[in-house]
């Protein structure tokens, strides 16, 4: 299957004199897990912010399944089925864990009943309970989200993405701040998800990237340096150059290449 779920053409975003995303071209193939890597400040998060409508592009366009979504409002893009998690973990701190999931589910449905009590909505309740199990947060269901550990917030973010039945899921460093055990659990979850949902993941952890990605795009200075299979990327001279000065990452690239 080579149908492209997301097609990005000449996407550009400037902040004053700084061009954070520079004439970016990218095609995300449906059914393949796509990882975006690149040094700090390469414009990866800005790219996600452009796709999800938080920022307006200065030029270029984004097509989702052939539909031009450039310039749509974030909630409209969300309702089309593009969901994301944030690099700086972001939930509703005063709502409980299950209320976070609840409100996310209802937001996707687009129906916000003004009078029916939330607890009488059985379909949503079952789905919330199911998702709590999926992300392993059932014991914390009634805790205010603001009191969770960083790793649990990250899991909750993934749960919120899940419960909204996305077609395309954008994950911005989902394992950042997680313990090794949590990371392993999350990676497993992402692998399972990728079987049914199209996923784009920004990730700094090269071990994770080379474990799960079908395709990899390397971004530097707002541009698409190279896209290709993990093997192609690990053998690419330009990628090594881009990562010079970041020896740990280079090691990972090498390790993964020999694995």
């Amino acid at each position, binding site marked *: 299957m080579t149908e492209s779920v997301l097609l990005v053409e000449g996407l550009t975003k400037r902040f004053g004199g700084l061009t954070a995303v520079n004439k970016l071209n990218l095609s995300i193939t449906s059914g393949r897990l796509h990882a975006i890597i690149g040094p700090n400040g390469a414009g990866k998060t800005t790219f996600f912010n452009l796709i*999800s409508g*938080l920022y307006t592009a200065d030029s270029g366009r984004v097509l989702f399944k052939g539909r031009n979504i450039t310039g749509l*409002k*974030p*909630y409209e893009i*969300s*309702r089309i089925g593009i*969901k*994301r998690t*944030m690099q700086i973990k*972001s*939930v*509703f*701190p*005063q*709502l*409980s864990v299950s*209320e976070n999931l*609840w*409100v*996310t589910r*209802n*937001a*996707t449905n*687009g*129906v*916000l*009943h*003004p*009078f*029916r*009590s*939330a*607890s009488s*909505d059985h379909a949503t309740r079952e789905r919330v309970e199911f998702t709590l199990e999926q992300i392993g947060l059932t014991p914390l269901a*009634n*805790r*205010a989200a603001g009191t969770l550990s960083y790793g649990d917030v990250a899991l909750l973010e993934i749960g*919120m993405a899940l419960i*909204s039945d996305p077609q395309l899921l954008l994950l911005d460093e989902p394992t950042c701040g997680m313990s090794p055990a949590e990371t392993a659990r999350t990676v497993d979850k992402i692998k399972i998800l990728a079987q049914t949902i199209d996923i784009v993941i920004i990730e700094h952890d090269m071990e994770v990237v080379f474990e799960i990605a079908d395709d990899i795009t390397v971004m530097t200075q707002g541009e698409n340096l190279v896209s290709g299979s993990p093997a192609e990327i690990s053998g690419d001279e330009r990628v090594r150059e881009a990562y010079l000065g970041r020896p740990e990452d280079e090691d990972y690239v090498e390790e993964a290449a020999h694995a």
Partner: protein
Amino acid sequence: MTMSLMMIRRAMLIAFIVALIAVPWIVPALINKFWVSVIAEIMIWSLFAASVNLLFGYVGLLSFGQALYFGFGMYGVAIGISTLGLSFWPAFGLGIIASVAIAFVAGIFAVRLTWHYFAIITVVFSLIFYFFAVSVKAVTGGDDGINFTLPPTFSFGGYTGSFSNETFQYFFIFAAVAFCFFLMHRVIQSPLGKAFVAIRDNDTRAELIGLNVYQLRLIAFVMSGFLAGVSGALFAFFGRYASASYMFYHVSGEAVVWAIVGGAGTLLGPIVGTTLFIVIREVVSTHWEHHSLIVGVMAILVVILAPTGLVGLWNERLARWSAREKVPATRTSLQSEP
């Protein structure tokens, strides 16, 4: 929330409602008749403070212009009765429709903004209409206002229900205010109410999960205009007059203090705050003309010592107490507590 916490809360709520129902008999016997109408007035102003609370406590928008919608409710009733010759219910309806309509128009502009920009634009709107109301004396009576004779509420068979009967007046106000609080309670517990709180907590995230934040803020703004409008209409009935002075921002500001001191984001916070300050006013102002000094000091103390307001503080205490009693108290969100 555990069963026992819920039962304590429910029992207190029932006791509170029963006490309010008993007021027309108990209060004249224990204190004097005058306090029955003070309590009726407290209920009206509590509803007004609730309109601030719905916006600030649940959606995170601090309005300093709620007096505008209160004023429209008041003038809808007064102009309806004295100028248009309407009877009770159509005048009531006119007051409510007028305040909801102006809230809708103002909201279209106001909810594009947040934080202090929002606060400023709400003040500006209310000031514009305040000066307008003062200047078109022919219609509004300006600062002198409009006095009118109140038509009966209804007559059924031989019985005529009218505000000239103080007990009837009290119960009408009680029923109207209680109904509005009930509506608000339902909304807060509903998916819509949860979406409000989500926006208050994190509006970027709310937008990303698919909530139309602008539209929801506008809905909340209009609902809050409705609550303010009903309270203004009731106050017009209660005082048999309307005056532009009630549209001044000073009136809006008082409601903000009442709501925050009582506990923003709690259903009953505005009632507690309003009661506290009106009782202080009634008791102290007869002895000392600088009673607003006490009000100011108290407001500052509460904001510093109990940032979640008096009801918030009480909820925390109750939760802690119940945890100590070895009742496994999982604190759910503040929002689902009364």
